[in-house]
């Protein structure tokens, strides 16, 4: 080994020892070697001084006081915002004004929250949009989401929504469901509404696992008698699963699903149904029909994104 290489190796060893800390972590022999090296190596000695100086310099930076204007803003956070898990009840309360023929406007607190929380803002817009869907499609061989909603709006719904009035949901627009696909979509929509109205899905998760099944059963019990058993089973299964899973991801899930549902419902209604012959066009669509017990595209997307 040349002198230069030996010196470099010694410097490197010295730095490693310095990294372990001179005040502790190295034995006396190593410390003695380090001291000896530092005495003979100007570079390492100045290096160590540099490290020490840097630390002292950083320590000299004093702690800033919080500016008054910031302090005021921070203290107002509870007024201007509320936890996302309160969104469901607040949104249901606001939407219930539709029942009285009034314009739907969020409360001041909710409105302020929507300005700072994109997820809730999207959920609000989706809910609002869902609530303004027009009647679509023919009225035969189908059942209505309208028929499902009173089950949610009964005693249990009112109790779970934390006292918020959800009577507005009784007038939820007539959505017409033609086949299994729409059955599942209705299940998801109803379940999503349940998730939002009930309030905190995370609370459901922790304490009320049984309620998800109960809600789903109540929903299924309201299905018209003409609905085939396979659809009924599919409905109940999907509703229970959606409610149960909504618990974990709460609004993110509900909001994402609402978006997907909105795209499907509105896209389908606007591009296909108004032109007539929906069944024929649907056969030509690239979207596959849902087989009972199998995942839909939406489900698969959601599964991958949120539960994968």
């Amino acid at each position, binding site marked *: 080994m040349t002198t230069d290489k030996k010196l470099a190796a010694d410097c490197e060893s010295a730095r490693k020892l310095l990294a372990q800390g001179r005040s502790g972590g190295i034995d006396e022999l190593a410390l003695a070697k380090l001291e000896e090296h530092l005495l003979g190596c100007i570079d390492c000695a100045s290096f160590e001084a540099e490290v020490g100086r*840097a630390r002292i310099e950083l320590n000299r930076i004093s702690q800033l006081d919080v500016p008054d204007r910031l302090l005021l803003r921070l203290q107002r956070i509870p007024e201007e*915002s509320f936890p996302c898990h309160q969104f469901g009840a607040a949104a249901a309360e606001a939407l219930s004004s539709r029942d009285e023929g009034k314009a739907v406007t969020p409360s001041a607190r909710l409105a302020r929250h929507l300005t700072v929380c994109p997820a809730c803002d999207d959920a609000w817009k989706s809910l609002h949009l869902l609530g303004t869907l027009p009647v679509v499609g023919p009225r035969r061989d189908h059942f209505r989401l309208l028929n499902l909603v009173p089950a949610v709006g009964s005693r249990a719904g009112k109790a779970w929504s934390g006292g918020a009035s959800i009577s507005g949901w009784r007038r939820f627009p007539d959505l017409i469901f033609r086949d299994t696909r729409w059955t599942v979509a209705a299940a998801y929509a109803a379940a999503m509404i349940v998730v939002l109205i009930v309030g905190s899905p995370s609370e459901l998760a922790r304490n009320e696992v049984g309620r998800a099944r109960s809600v789903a059963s109540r929903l299924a019990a309201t299905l018209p008698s003409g609905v085939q058993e396979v659809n009924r089973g599919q409905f109940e299964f999907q509703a229970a699963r959606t409610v149960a899973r909504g618990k974990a991801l709460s609004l993110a899930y509900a909001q994402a699903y609402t978006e997907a549902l909105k795209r499907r419902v509105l896209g389908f209604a606007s591009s296909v149904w108004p032109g007539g012959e929906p069944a024929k066009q649907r056969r030509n669509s690239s979207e596959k029909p849902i087989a009972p017990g199998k995942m839909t595209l939406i489900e698969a997307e959601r599964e991958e994104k949120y539960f994968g």
Partner: protein
Amino acid sequence: MKAVNDVQLAETCRNGSRADQDQAWSELVAKYGKRIYNVAYHFTFRMEEAEELSQEIFLKLWQNLDRYDGSTSLLGWMIGVSRNHCIDHYRKFKRERGFRHVGDDVIALLAGPDNPSQELDRKERLSLLLEGIETLPDDLAEVVILRDLDDLSYAEMVDVLGLPEGTVKSRLNRARIELGTAVRRLAGLPPGTTPLRGRTRSSEVN
């Protein structure tokens, strides 16, 4: 309001009446606002950014208070949330804007008697230090910031970083050595020593 401990404070913020919530929150802000604000400031060294960051952090804290289970100190939990938020911002900052320039407001923070003749020197040294910190890999930079700027104890750093104390100490020492090397290099001083092996600088990667 009578004196309450942090767990009670958090609980009141979560489940108290509206008035109690507001009062508890104000107390919490008054108690820990300075620490959180300084964490944000030391990751940015810009007052406006630190204010924005602080507001985002406190909003996040408010919205996630129900996740605080009382198993660690409230301050530790709050700083942990702040650190996660700040480190994301710090990485984005480095990626988008490169080195920061030291403003007069930072120079004013240096303790000690005012001496105009030394101000330029102090400014240059501090600039080098901050640039040096930014050349460090993120994991090393954050331990320097948390320890030397935010003055966190080792125990607090263990909570915040979720690492064993030994790892925290060795990482901190390694960070200081790397910082010394970086400052010398930035100042145009001869390196004198070979750099530590086995680590890749983020600046070299980018």
